C-alpha cells in the first residue's frame, strides 16, 4: 500500500495487488512491492502477520497447502510466476528454512541432490558443483575431508550452512530465507549473517527475520508487515533499511522498531 523506494537498481521481483487466502481466511491483503536485485531485503513484523506466507508465495510453496488460493500477480524478471511451471520456478528461487533440514544422506549427496534431480549425472561436474557450493556457503574447509559423513552429523550451524550450500547448488537467482538463524546459537548466527553478506553479490536475497538488530545491520532494504484487525497481513512501510530504522514514516513502524509491540 505504501510505495517502495528502490535505488536506480534493477527490480528482481515485482508484486502487484497480491492477496492470499487460506480458504475463507485472508492471510495477505493487497501487497504491492518491488524487490530489488542483488540486494538483501529483510521482512520484519510481529508474529502471525504473514511474513513467511509472503515469501513462500515467491516460490509457490504455499500451493502445497490445498486450501490456499491467491489473487494478484508476482513477476520474476518480468515473467508472471504463475505462468511458469512451479517446479521450474523453484530452480530459480531457492529457499532456506527456519530449522535446518538436511536429508539423511551424506554431505556430498545432500548438495548433489538438486543438480542430480535436474539431470546432471556426470560425477566430475557434480564434484565441482559440490565444492563450489560449499565454498560459497563457507563450509568447504570444515567438511572437505568428510564429504561422506551424514549431513545429520553436523552441528546446527553447519547444517544450516549445508542447507544454504544445497540451495546454491542449483544456481538460483533468488534465495528466500525464513528466519534462517533463529534456531541457531549466536556464533553460528553471526557466521550465517556474514555468509549472507557475501552472497548478495550474485544473488537476490529476501530474508524474514524476527531479530530487528539483524535486519538493521544486515540488510539493504526492509519491509515492515503488520497484522490488521481482521488478522490479514499487510505492508505498512518499505524502504532503505537505514531510513526505516532511523526515520520511519509510519507511526506503527516507529512503535514496532522501538519495541512497543510485536
Amino acid at each position: 500500500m505504501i510505495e517502495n523506494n528502490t535505488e536506480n537498481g534493477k527490480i528482481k521481483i515485482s508484486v502487484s495487488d497480491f492477496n492470499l487466502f487460506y480458504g475463507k481466511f485472508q492471510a495477505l491483503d493487497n501487497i504491492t512491492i518491488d524487490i530489488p536485485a542483488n540486494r538483501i531485503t529483510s521482512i520484519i513484523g510481529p508474529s502471525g502477520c504473514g511474513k513467511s506466507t509472503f515469501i513462500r508465495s515467491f516460490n509457490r510453496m504455499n500451493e502445497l497447502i490445498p486450501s490456499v488460493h491467491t489473487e494478484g500477480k508476482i513477476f520474476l524478471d518480468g515473467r508472471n510466476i504463475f505462468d511458469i511451471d512451479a517446479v521450474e520456478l523453484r530452480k530459480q528461487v531457492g529457499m532456506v528454512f527456519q530449522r535446518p533440514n538436511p536429508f539423511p544422506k551424506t554431505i556430498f549427496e545432500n548438495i548433489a541432490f538438486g543438480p542430480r534431480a535436474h539431470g546432471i549425472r556426470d560425477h566430475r561436474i557434480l564434484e565441482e558443483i559440490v565444492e563450489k557450493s560449499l565454498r560459497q556457503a563457507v563450509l568447504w574447509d570444515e567438511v572437505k575431508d568428510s564429504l561422506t559423513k551424514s549431513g545429520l552429523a553436523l552441528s546446527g550451524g553447519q547444517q544450516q550452512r549445508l542447507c544454504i550450500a544445497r540451495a546454491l547448488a542449483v544456481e538460483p537467482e533468488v534465495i528466500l530465507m525464513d528466519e534462517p538463524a533463529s534456531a541457531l546459537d549466536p556464533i553460528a548466527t553471526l557466521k550465517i549473517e556474514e555468509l549472507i553478506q557475501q552472497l548478495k553479490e550474485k544473488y537476490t536475497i529476501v530474508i524474514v527475520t524476527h531479530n530487528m538488530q539483524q535486519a538493521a545491520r544486515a540488510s539493504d532494504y526492509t519491509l515492515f508487515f503488520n497484522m490488521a484487525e481482521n488478522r490479514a497481513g499487510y505492508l505498512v512501510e518499505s524502504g532503505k533499511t537505514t531510513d526505516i530504522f532511523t526515520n520511519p514514516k509510519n507511526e506503527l513502524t516507529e512503535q514496532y522498531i522501538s519495541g512497543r509491540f510485536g
Partner: protein
Amino acid sequence: MKEIKKNSIRVLAVLFAAVSFYLLYSGFEKIISVDLPVSLALSQPQAIFAIILSLFSGALAVGLWRLKNWTKTAISLLSILLIIIFAVSEIFNFSTIVFAGESITPLSVIVSTFGKSIVNLLLNCGIPLLLIIGLKFVDEIFLESETQRFIVDKFIQRALVFVGSSSILVVFLIFIFTFIESSDAILNIGLGELLTGTVWRPGYIIGDQSGQFGLVPMLLGSIYSTIGAVILGVPLAILTAILLAEIAPPAVREVFRPAIELLAGIPSVIFGLFGMVVLAPLIRNFEIAGNSGFGILNASIILAIMILPTITNVTEDAIRSVPDSYRHASLAMGATRWQTIVSVVLPAARSGIIAAIILGIGRALGETMALIMVIGNSIAIPVPLDNNPLTILLATTRTLTGNIAVEINYAAGVHRSALFFTGVLLFLLLLVINRLAHFILREKQPS
C-alpha cells in the same frame, strides 16, 4: 573418450536397426508365403508379433542413435526382465534335479547341476548382461531431456491411481464372485433351509439327488468353540495385558511382549497338531463313553491360545492410552495400585477392551485349519455325551470354516454353491464384527 563412447552407442543403434529390419523382413515373408488373401494372412500371430517387435526394435534403434535417455532406461529394464526370466527357469530346473528326488542327491550331482545351471544362465543372459553393463559405462552420454522428469511424474501420478484402486477391485471381486457362486444355493436350496436346517448331507454321497444343506450344526460348532475360547482366553488375555501395561517392570516387558508376538505368528496348523498330539490324549483321560479326545474342549483350549495375542495387544493399547493423570489422581487419594486399576483404569479403557474381545471373537470365528484338526468334524449337532450337560464339551462337531475347507475340493453343483454361501455368511458376519470393533475404537478417540 567421449567420442568413442558415442560411437559405440551408434554401433549398437545400427545393430538394433538391423534386428528390426530382419524381423520386418521375416514377418512380411511369413505373410507373403502363406497362400491366403492378405486380410487373413495379416492375422497370422507370429507374423504380427514379428512386425510389432521389429517396430519396437526400430524405435529403440532411433532412440539410441539420438542418444535419448528413455532408450537407455528401456533397454536396461528389458534386459533385467530377461535375466530374471532366465534365472527363474534355471532355478526351477535346478530344484527339480536336486530337491525333488526320492533319495538324497549325491554331492557330485549337486555340484555338476549347479555348474550346468550357471553355464546355462551365462549363455542365455550374456547379451542382456553385456547391454546393462555397457550402458552403465557410457551413462553420461545419454542426454536427459528436461521434460523427461515431468513426463515420468505425470505418468506415475496417473498410474498410482490405478494401483491404489487395486484394493477396491479385490474387495469388489470377492463380493461379486462369492455372491454369484452362492446364488445357486440361495435359489435352489433357499435361505430358510440353509440357515435353519439341522442336517447337512450333501446328497450324492448317499446317491439321491436331493441333499440336505442345513448349516445349523456348523453354526453351533463355530459358536460353541468360540464361546469356549472366549471363556478360557479372554480373562487370561486381559490379565496378561494388565500385567504388561501396568505392573510388570520394563525388563519383564521386554521378554513377555516379544513372546506374545511370537505366539501370534505361529502357524495355526502347529496349534492343531499340538491339540491332536498332546491335548487329545490328555482329554481322553476323562472316562466317558464317546470321548475321543477331540471336540469342543480341545478346540476351545487351542483357540483360546490363538486369540490371546490379539486380545492382549488391543487391550494393552487401550490401557496404555488411559492418561496418567487419572492414575495419579487416584493414587494421590491413597488408593492402592490395584484399586486404581480396577476402579479407574479399566473402566476408562472399557471400550478398548470390548473392542479387543470382539476382535478376538472375529479371529476365533475365522480360524479354520487348526479347528479341523481337533474338533472332530462330525456333521451332527453337538449334544452332551451323557446325562451330564458338561459333556457337550467332549462332543465332536464342525465349524462353518471347517465345513468349507473340508468339502470344497470335491464339491460340485449346488453343494459347492452351498459352501460358497457358507463363505458369504462368514464374510458378512465378520464384516459386521469388525465394523463394530472399529466403531467402538473410534468412538473412544475423542476422549
